[in-house]
């Protein structure tokens, strides 16, 4: 089957620092891929390259039959089909919850306001924020903000969703409410690429786990393979230290 997203030989440097050293990765439609790895291994950079928030130095990113790295690609058009959720929520501070969700559909997809609001309310209800539709986005809790951010991305009806450590900025007690939303999404068949430190989530939800180390993909496989019997020494080291750090 043709992958929905195909990354070939992706490289990226920040000045002298080479952060991505040739990444190849295919994501099938409906697949949930979790990217794990040590801090500074380039996970966020990879994810941000996937919708060209970072411009890669070389390599190709094929999405829906188009190469995003082509200088003449219609970036804004392609980005409409790729949702992204950030670690820091990044809600629009000058808009309330509903307007956060309807801004892009109305202004870039030219959907009539009433219809956009209907869709937004539907998605806000699914993430459990039906009561906060008119709330000031600055006054929400972190978990609520992140769920609004997810709803906002869903309102564009993306074909794939990218998550960059969506729960890292949250208090441990409210990590669950965001993860639950993501699990529901995964169950509904959304294609997802998730950078995360939540190993339990990765184990439970993902179809494939990708371990990144120093700018390369060192190992990938099903959660059972990667967590159960990692092939690489580096992976074992990371996982054991990670589990130790977490006190598990």
């Amino acid at each position, binding site marked *: 089957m043709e992958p929905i997203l195909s990354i070939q030989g992706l490289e990226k440097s920040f000045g002298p620092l080479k952060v991505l050293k040739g990444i190849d990765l295919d994501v099938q439609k409906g697949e949930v891929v979790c990217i794990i790895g040590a801090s500074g291994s380039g996970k966020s950079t990879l994810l941000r390259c996937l919708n060209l*928030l970072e*411009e890669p130095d070389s390599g190709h990113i094929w999405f829906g039959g188009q190469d995003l790295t082509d200088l003449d690609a219609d970036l804004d058009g392609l*980005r409409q089909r790729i949702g*992204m959720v950030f670690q820091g929520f990044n809600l629009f*501070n000058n808009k309330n919850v509903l307007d956060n969700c309807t801004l*892009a559909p109305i202004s870039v997809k030219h959907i009539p306001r009433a219809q956009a609001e209907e869709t937004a309310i539907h998605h806000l209800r699914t993430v459990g924020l039906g009561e906060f*539709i008119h*709330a*000031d986005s600055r006054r929400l809790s972190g978990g609520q903000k992140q769920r609004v951010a997810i709803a906002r991305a869903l309102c*564009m009806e993306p074909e794939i969703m990218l998550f960059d450590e969506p729960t890292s900025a949250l208090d441990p007690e409210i990590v669950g409410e965001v993860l639950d939303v993501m699990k529901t999404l995964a169950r509904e068949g959304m294609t997802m690429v998730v950078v995360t430190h939540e190993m339990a989530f990765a184990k439970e939800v993902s179809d494939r786990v990708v371990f990144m180390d120093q700018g390369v993909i060192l190992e990938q496989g099903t959660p059972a393979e990667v967590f159960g019997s990692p092939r690489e020494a580096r992976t074992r080291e990371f996982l054991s230290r990670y589990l130790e750090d977490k006190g598990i």
Partner: protein
Amino acid sequence: MAMNNIFSALCAILGDAGRWLRGRAAALLSFAAADHPYVYLSGSALSLAAALTYIFSQRYGFFLSRPLWVWTALALCGAFCLASLAALASKLRLKRRYRAGSRFCAPAARRAARYGSYVIWTVAALTLADRLHVLYQVVREVMAMDTNPSPFFQAMVYMFYNSRALFLRGLWTTLRLAFFGTIFGFLLAVGLVFLRIQTPSKRDWDHVKLIKILCSRFAALYATVVRGTPMMLQAFIIYYAGFGLFKGHTDLTITEINTIWSFFIAGLTTVSLNSAAYLSEVLRGGVESIDAGQTEAARSLGMSSWMTMMKVVFPQALKNSIPAIGNEMIINIKDSSVLNCIGVVELMYAATSVAGIYYKNLPNYVSAAIIYLIMTCCISAILNKLSARLSLNTYRGVPSSN
């Protein structure tokens, strides 16, 4: 060797003495600050001020004989001073137990002090009312005079009253310069800041990159030039450059040019162009203060950079900049005074003209200063109200159930 020893011993002694003194001073200060009924002292100061007002002023008022009033006030002052002294003595005697043990801390004494403060308050209020009445009388008299009186205040009132048309015209012009100058300046600044924040990206075509670089350089250069030269000089340059343009490229006569390219228009242009530079910096700061995350979120949703700017970044930047924009208006009220150099009849020009008519400088400049002060205070009060109203709006969106 011996010298050294003596020296270090001396240092030690001096150091000890210094520490001791500092300790005493701190103890004394905390003693003075603790529990003192300062109402006695402030009461005596106020009533003394009331008495002095009548001892030194030539005019007195409408409701009491002067000696009686002076003696009342002095007696009050004396009574409060005595009470204060007695309280101090009691405090020195009782030290730490003052608060618990002294009669001056008993509720009865506190109540007496409170009633005493009402009396002082009345005296002060009556004195003030009387002085205002006297002021009113003086102003009435001055308004009826037909020669310039010599006392400072009277002369000031006389000249202001008799040249009020000129002063008011100046005031009105100053207000218009500041108001419209800030508005036009703001509109220009919005344009400038959009030029300024253009950054070429890898995906732009080459000529777009070039245009973006040129735009941003131009806006930066404009701000540098305007902020780096005095406004008075800008006024001269703009006035004469405009005049030259009309003269060189049209066949208008000089009188015709002066009606089209009037001093006021040239002055307004100066203020606007000047404010544009400062406000563009303010707005740029506002744009840069919006965290990049919001821009990235908007771009990740497929919004163009222009749309991101218009719908997300700029509205927030603008809102954050509102206080600074108000500030610019107040600055313009004051700084438009330099436009008197090209003959704009604003308040400064009016004051100078009146000074020239009467050969008296100081009173007229003080009048002008008072008017400027009133204007700036009023405007900043209005602006504070407005910005309070605006920030209130942000609290509207309290969670509502549906």
